[in-house]
């Protein structure tokens, strides 16, 4: 527990943490601005146009940014210490290296869960309040709690993948480059693969797992242009856990060796 306390102090006294949280807050505010735009567009439209107005779930934007922010925070958690040499102080204070990695993972998981849920809930609450009782699809039905809660595990997963890759590469640039590709490029490539591989690969890309965890199939909900979700919530949870373990094991082994 001492190691966790130490890592918690480091996490909240790192500039990057607050810059990242500010970026997430700004995105939440941005979803509010988009909701205002949608609401005014709705109010100015006639009945036939109103029927065609649809909005992608705006809270997903806040989650999308939170995923990247926490992947970067996870990556920096260890790589910044290697860069400054602080890691020697850390390993001198806590000689059991697995305990250091576990403590960092615990802090990132807790902060990621909290931030993921908070970002989703804040964005959904804000946009929902602005759209009000306008009968726009997505906003004309009650919020499913599960849709918001899955933001937590998703953000925590990104943070832990950043941590594990950082432990493996010990390079912030290599780690952030890799998570950026996993977060942005891989999902786009996956969507454009020939069938049936587009659905298969899209079902296991990092940015999609939370919708499957919530039991949502985007192809059913938004139409056929979105890849189908092939995983059940349990399978999605297993894949998320598997990714985290897969990435963190070699990092742990490398930290233990020297």
């Amino acid at each position, binding site marked *: 527990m*001492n190691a966790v306390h*130490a890592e918690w102090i480091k996490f909240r006294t790192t*500039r990057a943490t607050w810059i990242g949280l500010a970026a997430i807050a700004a995105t939440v505010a941005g979803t509010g601005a988009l909701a205002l735009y949608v609401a005014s567009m709705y109010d100015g439209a006639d009945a036939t146009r109103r029927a065609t107005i649809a909005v992608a779930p705006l809270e997903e934007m806040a989650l999308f940014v939170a995923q990247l922010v926490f992947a970067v925070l996870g990556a920096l958690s260890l790589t*910044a210490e290697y860069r400054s040499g602080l890691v020697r102080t850390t*390993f*001198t204070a806590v*000689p059991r290296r697995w305990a250091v990695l576990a403590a960092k993972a615990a802090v990132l998981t807790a902060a990621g869960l909290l931030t993921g849920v908070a970002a989703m809930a804040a964005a959904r609450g804000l946009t929902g309040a602005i759209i009000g009782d306008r009968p726009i699809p997505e906003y004309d039905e009650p919020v499913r709690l599960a849709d918001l809660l899955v933001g937590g595990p998703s953000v925590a997963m990104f943070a832990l993948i950043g941590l594990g890759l950082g432990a493996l590469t010990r390079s912030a640039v290599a780690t952030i480059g890799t998570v950026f590709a996993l977060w942005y490029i891989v999902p786009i490539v996956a969507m454009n693969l020939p069938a049936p591989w587009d659905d298969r690969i899209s079902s296991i890309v990092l940015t999609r797992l939370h919708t499957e965890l919530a039991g949502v199939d985007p192809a059913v909900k938004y139409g056929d242009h979105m890849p189908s979700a092939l995983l059940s919530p349990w399978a999605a949870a297993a894949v998320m856990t598997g990714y985290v373990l897969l990435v963190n094991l070699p990092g742990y082994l490398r930290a233990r060796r*020297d």
Partner: protein
Amino acid sequence: MIETRSLTKRYGRVTAVDELSFTVAPGHVTGFLGPNGAGKSTTMRMILGLDRPDGGEALVDGRRYTAIRRPAHVLGALLDATALQPGRSGRAHLRAVAAANGIGAARVAEVLDRVGLTGAARRPASAYSLGMKQRLGIAQALLGDPGVLMFDEPVNGLDPEGVRWIRGLLRDLAAEGRTVLVSSHLMTEMALTAERLLVIGRGKLIADTTVAALTAGGESLEDAYFRLTETSVEYGGTR
């Protein structure tokens, strides 16, 4: 008490530390002298479990450092004072290190006071001079009130007043019955601070002696040091 037994570290074909055995006893300042690249820092890292020895072992109070549960209470070390996260304040840095060993904020305030950094405690580390970073590192070593202290080149970057201060501090710590090991390549500095001397060159122990014995023949400590290490300097101009 610090003890090494046949401690060995190789980097590829280079043997950085070669069957090094010595004991550092409490009650006086022991200087750890040797030219650059002699293996001083590598030895210290192995004592702290940061580098794994290829042979032999290093013990702190009879135990391997990595087997000690809250090591800050047994050994305090300053290896590299500049190893700080630039945006974090000195106080936050110490609080994190202290928390890892179950030490609270009150003790952090105490050590900050002892090294004279209370006024700068909330400033980010990037605003510290090298001398202030050295003071912060010393405060960090003192956090757990340990019986063994190890400092790697602690006077680097200190102004004359700071050098004088650390000299007094090291002697006080030793007089309190602690084991104090201080590495340096400045023999003149060691002459003023240390009582015992461990001289190493190319990873091997060259001399385990006292300052008094080394200068007994009327030779200056500097001359005695050069005589001892002349065959072990790896990189240097011809003399």
